[in-house]
């Protein structure tokens, strides 16, 4: 009898631990291969033949298609420079420079990676249409309300993400990425 109880306990533990941890790892976390630089996170291996099984499982569930290593690299940020989550009610300044790339695009998405409807019908900015300072740096204002200059509008959401896609960039390995200079996301105003 005790053997049966012990066995049942072991099986219950195995199923609970196995399923819950697998679900968590695939659905919530991308545990391996993440490289962060200045608050931005990239998965340089996701666009290669050596992508890890967690990333492949996540892509299979979401239907997402990554950028190939020969196309570019995608960075995501969901926190500002102070470590607070990006809130759809606040205004943020994205300032600085991007790493070397022939072309980049900056897009705001909701917390699930979906595009947001916004008043200006502007999905994002790309490197050739922004107004830059004389030293080549830029300031993009991310705000739900109308702003002057490079205004990236966001929809009425609680939390959002910024996606910076660098196309035709020499960044291929993770080691270079950690020391990169990325644009900073600074909170400007919060009602």
């Amino acid at each position: 009898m005790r053997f049966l109880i012990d066995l049942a306990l072991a099986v219950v533990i195995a199923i609970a631990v196995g399923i819950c941890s697998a679900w968590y790892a695939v659905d919530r976390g991308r545990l391996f291969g993440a490289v962060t630089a200045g608050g931005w996170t990239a998965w340089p291996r996701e666009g290669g033949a050596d992508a890890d099984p967690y990333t492949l499982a996540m892509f299979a569930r979401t239907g997402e298609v990554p950028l190939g290593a020969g196309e570019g690299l995608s960075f995501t940020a969901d926190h500002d420079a102070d470590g607070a989550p990006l809130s759809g009610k606040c205004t943020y300044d994205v300032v600085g420079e991007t790493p070397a790339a022939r072309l980049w695009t900056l897009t705001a998405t909701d917390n699930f990676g979906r595009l947001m409807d916004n008043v200006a019908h502007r999905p994002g900015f790309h490197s050739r249409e922004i107004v830059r300072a004389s030293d080549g740096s830029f300031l993009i204002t991310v705000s739900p309300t109308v702003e002057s200059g490079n205004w990236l509008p966001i929809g009425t959401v609680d939390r959002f993400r910024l996606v910076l896609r660098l196309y035709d960039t020499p960044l291929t390995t993770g080691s270079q990425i950690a020391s990169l200079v990325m644009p900073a996301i600074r909170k400007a105003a919060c009602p």
Partner: protein
Amino acid sequence: MTRTLLFVVGGLLLGGIIHVVIVFLVPTYASNDAWSEMGRFGQDRQFHTLPLPEAGTERVPGMDPRMLQAVCRFNLTTGPLRVHADLPDEFWSVAVFDRRGRNVYSLNDRAAEGPKLDLAILTSVQMAQIHQNPPPALENAIVVELPIDAGFVLLRAFVPDDSTLPAARTALAGASCGDAI
């Protein structure tokens, strides 16, 4: 008590194995993956232009709204694949994904050295056959040997503004994806 503890440890170990098995099986059993989604645009071995990503109507998640994309699903068991495209003088790229959505090959316009793309995709066996008897049709093509059977090719063309959208649409509509020789 020690025996119960032993069973708990055994349960944890078995849980670890279940975890690994599930993670590896997800791509096999997922019905919502990129390959299935790309098949909803039309027939295989043809390029289909995807709608430009817009809020609320995204067919494929996580796509750049500044890129107009065309997809061609293929299966190499019926023969090698040849991709031809004449793209606008802007950034464009091409990526090949396998059945499980893993990127196995990618290239951008600079690496392709010009606006014209001529790509041939072959399996190892087909490559060996071609080596014995190289067809002149493949002389100018970028020939890629890939360890896959089924997959899809994704062409992405950068659209800087609305005025360049028609040119990109025409270029992607003119892209061909068919038999190699």
